[in-house]
């Protein structure tokens, strides 16, 4: 019982700052009406949300994770706290708007690069120090690099790709996507400490009022064994996994020289751009735009597919999109079966009209 042993050795100064955790536990309506008063009054519990950032700014996916974690804490009758590793320019106290009372920060420059081993060690120590029993990550690239390491270190059951709040009425059951979005599994976590990694775009960010207390957390940070020799940022594009709207092109565009119609539409919608596998393989578009089973898996609010037939491997990458629009001249294209809206027609005629109509709508709005 690594977690329990460690928790008992929390410095008393640290525990004192957590008394608010307990009063909130008894003031709020909680899930366990006969919840016994803990013997150790100074034994805290909370939901700890890992906050990811890049270029000094907090990632959009982290706001979703914060909102999710805060709601879960409310459901459990406990409090939500956030953890930031490294340095950021954004105002951390403002994270209170998403429902966290306290933001712990380990400000070491070493942590501005993701090293799974270092991150796991620091996060695990923070979990122990804060007495958290649920740790929430966003399932973005950073979450994928770190959450499992943290779970192994804490001997915590983990559910990655979570897409709803846990059902805590009888145990702790988290819903997640499986079979590349073609089904859901309800997974019970049976360990005392639990790790959840939340799918991007699957929980709505809730913005309220509030300011969080920002506190430095002193954790020893080892030297990284990973030497970064180059960083290539994709500049000037909406990151695909974070985009609300994605416009995607397939072989129906006939060649890379025809991408203008798609880019015009994407620009008008402030959308990310994507492509099907044949397009990526033919180097018509950069590889990082390839969405599908073996490419990037996305879940935007709106996915617009231009000239993509909709093979099952492509659908596996986009089927978590909330609304799917398909424009294809072949009425038999399988994608229409998975779509919400469709136009059977020549995309080279339809798409410029669509861009114009959106422009008009924006003017009149």
């Amino acid at each position, binding site marked *: 019982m690594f977690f329990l042993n460690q928790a008992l050795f929390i410095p008393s100064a640290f525990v004192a700052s957590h008394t608010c955790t307990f009063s909130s536990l008894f003031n709020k309506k909680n899930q366990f009406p006969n919840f016994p008063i803990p013997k150790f009054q100074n034994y805290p519990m909370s939901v700890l949300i890992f906050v*990811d950032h*890049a*270029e000094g700014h907090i990632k959009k996916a982290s706001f979703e994770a914060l909102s999710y974690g805060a709601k879960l804490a409310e459901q459990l009758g406990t409090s939500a706290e956030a953890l930031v590793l490294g340095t950021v320019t954004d105002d951390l106290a403002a994270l209170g708007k998403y429902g966290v009372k306290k933001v712990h920060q380990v400000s070491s420059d070493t942590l501005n690069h993701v090293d*799974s*081993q270092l991150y*796991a060690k620091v996060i695990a120590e923070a979990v122990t120090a804060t007495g958290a029993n649920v740790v929430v990550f966003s399932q*973005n*690239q*950073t979450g*994928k*690099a770190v959450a*499992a*390491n943290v*779970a*192994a270190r804490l*001997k915590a*059951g*983990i559910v990655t*790709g979570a897409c709803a709040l846990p059902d805590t009425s009888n145990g702790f*059951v988290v819903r*997640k996507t*499986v*079979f590349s979005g*073609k*089904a*859901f*599994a*309800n*997974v*019970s*976590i*049976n*360990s005392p400490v639990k790790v959840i990694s939340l799918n991007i775009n699957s929980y709505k960010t809730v913005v309220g009022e509030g300011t969080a207390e920002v506190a430095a957390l002193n954790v020893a940070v080892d030297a990284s064994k*990973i*030497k*970064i*020799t*180059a*960083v*290539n*940022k*994709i500049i000037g594009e909406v990151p695909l996994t974070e985009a609300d*709207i994605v416009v995607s092109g397939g072989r129906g565009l006939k060649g890379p020289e025809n991408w203008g119609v798609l880019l015009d539409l994407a620009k008008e919608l402030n959308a990310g751009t994507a492509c099907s596998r044949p397009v990526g393989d033919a180097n018509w578009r950069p590889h990082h735009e*390839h969405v599908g*089973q*073996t490419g990037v898996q996305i879940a935007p609010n*709106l996915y617009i597919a231009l000239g993509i037939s909709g093979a099952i491997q492509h659908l*596996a990458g986009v089927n978590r999109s909330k*609304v799917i629009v398909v424009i294809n001249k072949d009425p038999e294209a399988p994608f*229409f*079966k998975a*779509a*919400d*809206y*469709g*136009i*059977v027609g020549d995309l080279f005629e339809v798409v410029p009209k*669509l861009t114009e*109509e*959106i422009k008009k709508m924006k003017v009149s709005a």
Partner: protein
Amino acid sequence: MKILVCVSKTPDTTSKIAFTAGNTKFDEAGVQWIINPYDEWYSLVRAIELKEKDASITIHLITVGLADCDPIIRKALALGGDEAIRVNADSSDSYYIAAQIAEVAKRGGYDLILTGKETIDYNGSSIGGMVAEMVDMPYVSLATLFDLNGTTATITREMEGGEEVAEVSLPLVVSCQKGMAEQRIPNMRGIMAARTKPLQVVEPAAADTLTSIVSFELPPAKAGVKLVSPDNVAELVRLLHEEAKAI
């Protein structure tokens, strides 16, 4: 140099997804089983490419599963694995599975452990990170390129908003995705050789199971596509704005 490649048995990408036993079990009727594509196309094939450049490399395969995994292990051996270990256990809990792999890895003295970035059935993306933690090795996730120079690995990996090139000394755990290598088809010589390559079956080590699947669900069926005439694109914009509230 010894490379351990973790492989998992998954349903073919075109399989019909259905459940039985009151939605608690995946319906295996008529399902074609394959090596998880991320394990095969990227980890295993990249390991084979490294071996082709350096004959001193041996490729060891590990899977955690029952005897029905043997065909996919034989296929992995046919592609170019040298020997395989199957831990004879059936589990859906990533901690349990990682503990089995870590147990074998601790004894095996591997310089490099490769996994796919996730399996296409449970989409856990957890095994690499957990094994790394259990055997106390650095972990590089979502690698798109991998090269070796002596005992130093040069890895390109996907990160938030771009990619990063890193140098790390072995031993090391890496999760692999598109870009690492291209799919290969086993040749007849490989298939024949695979029949006699060692496949050792070991019983699982004691390990805790921390999660369990309560039930599966299929997503609600789509209401059906609303088709709009190509001559009335304005109607599509209206529907997206007013009905779907997507723009």
